């Protein structure tokens, strides 16, 4: 019997670690997606930014963030700060059994959590591409991953007030994706559009990304990684019920992504008469973000429907952001993760009888409000102290030169 409990603990730990590794892989996905969607002169910089932010997130979340998010909170709004990384569960406690017995390694939990905060941070990276100072971005990353993200994470996953009112966000459509998008929106408002993005009369100018295979690869990587993101968020696999749940999550995650592609494909085909690859890549991500708030309750058919709406929605939102609100977001991060994230959170109420519209709306408002406002303040401080934007000439020459002194494709001639 004891061996069974050990085995169960081992399986759940292993499941966590593999899920976490898949989520870590999403960092590569964001890096490739963004490297494909910027111009070649800003490619080295965005790669450095992505690998740097993942590293900062890993370290800051260990040092501070995790302890805020899962520490002993002062109250349900204000988290505490407790240092507990290190000691893991004793075998005796595990085999003692009972409801409180740990059923997987704390460190595996930490590993799974740390890659989530990196995901949120990656979302910001794409939106501010091609014009932000690298060091300013890293400065924000430190605060975001140490404090801003963990505080709101505490509200739901750490047992704070959002969990108390029944806000439901399975794997983080809101806590991770919309939070990232809120920080990104604050950044773009402070930063402004890329030079040349809008004409003198406000007309939108296309700024095509340099490398579509990279962008597509990034999307495939994210799709794969999402099985860890959503699948691991069931938090346990070792019983029939949990195993079935994880399987359901995999199936629904895949179908929502597929339907998101089809949604964006249809929208782009109807609106432009062409199949806009970047839109269908965003469609896949929109499908994934949509279902992340609840990949478990819907039937596979409903999951596909939720993803389909996400994929349709994202095309319209991206165009609206661009044309109407003049929010210049080179990779569509704010639309994909923010607006579609909200859609995902609202869609929870269709399938999950325990979720309420009110709780979802409060959750959206609280998370968005907190992250947006605190980010706005942090960005403003950074702007005042070291500036956020490269000079016009540097922007024209490309950030690869000013920030990294290195070209991404030094040999390939320009058209």
């Amino acid at each position, binding site marked *: 019997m004891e061996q069974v409990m050990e085995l169960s603990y081992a399986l759940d730990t292993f499941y966590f670690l593999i899920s976490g590794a898949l989520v870590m892989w999403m960092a590569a996905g964001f890096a490739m997606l963004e490297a494909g969607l910027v111009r070649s002169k800003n490619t080295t910089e965005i790669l450095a930014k992505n690998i740097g932010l993942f590293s900062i997130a890993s370290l800051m979340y260990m040092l501070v963030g995790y302890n805020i998010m899962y520490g002993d909170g002062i109250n349900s709004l204000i988290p505490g700060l407790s240092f507990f990384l290190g000691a893991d569960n004793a075998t005796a406690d595990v085999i003692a059994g009972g409801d409180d017995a740990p059923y997987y390694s704390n460190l595996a939990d930490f590993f799974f959590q740390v890659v989530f905060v990196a995901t949120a941070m990656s979302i910001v990276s794409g939106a501010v591409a091609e014009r932000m100072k690298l060091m300013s971005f890293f400065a924000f990353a430190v605060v975001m991953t140490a404090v801003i993200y963990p505080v709101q994470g505490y509200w739901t996953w750490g047992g704070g007030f959002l969990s108390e009112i029944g806000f439901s966000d399975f794997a983080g459509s809101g806590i991770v994706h919309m939070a990232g998008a809120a920080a990104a929106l604050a950044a773009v408002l402070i930063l402004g559009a890329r030079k040349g993005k809008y004409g003198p009369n406000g007309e939108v100018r*296309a700024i*095509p990304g340099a490398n579509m295979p990279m962008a597509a690869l990034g999307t495939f990587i994210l799709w794969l990684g999402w099985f860890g993101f959503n699948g691991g968020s069931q938090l346990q696999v070792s019983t029939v019920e949990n195993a079935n749940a994880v399987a359901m999550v995999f199936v629904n995650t895949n179908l929502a992504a597929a339907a998101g592609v089809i949604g964006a494909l249809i929208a782009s085909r109807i609106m*432009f008469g062409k199949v*806009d690859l*970047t*839109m269908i890549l965003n469609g896949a991500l929109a499908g994934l973000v949509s279902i992340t708030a609840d990949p478990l309750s819907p039937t596979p058919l409903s999951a596909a429907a939720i993803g389909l709406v996400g994929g349709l929605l994202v095309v319209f939102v991206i165009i609206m952001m661009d*044309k109407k609100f003049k929010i210049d977001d080179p990779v569509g991060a704010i639309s994909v993760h923010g607006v579609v994230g909200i859609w995902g959170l609202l869609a929870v109420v269709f399938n999950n009888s325990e979720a309420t519209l009110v709780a979802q709306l409060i959750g959206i408002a609280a998370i968005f409000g907190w992250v947006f406002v605190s980010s706005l303040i942090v960005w403003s401080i950074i702007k005042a102290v070291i500036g956020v934007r490269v000079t016009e000439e540097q922007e024209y020459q490309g950030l690869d030169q000013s920030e990294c002194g290195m070209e991404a494709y030094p040999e390939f001639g320009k058209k």
Partner: protein
Amino acid sequence: MKLIVAIIKPFKLDDVREALHDIDVHGMTVTEAKGFGRQKGHTEIYRGAEYAIEFLPKVRLEIGVADDKVEQAIEAIGNAARTGKIGDGKIFVMPIEQAVRIRTEETGDIAL
């Protein structure tokens, strides 16, 4: 000696080279170019924003020929490069005052 500069459609390059070969003109230097003119470009789309690709890919040939070959060469290039559709390109003839083959230091027609 003259320098013939011909702007043609890229897929006609091989035909033109063969036509020149047939009249014993073997040397030439080619560069990729973009052309603007009467021929219109096309529209592309990127994340919902349409934009015009106004330039058209062309190939620029530069051929040093002896004076007595000029007419023949123009003829050959024109015939080989012609599709009859707009955008076929141009031929310009310009004077060369001196020509040198770097390898041998030969000058004049023999250097071509």
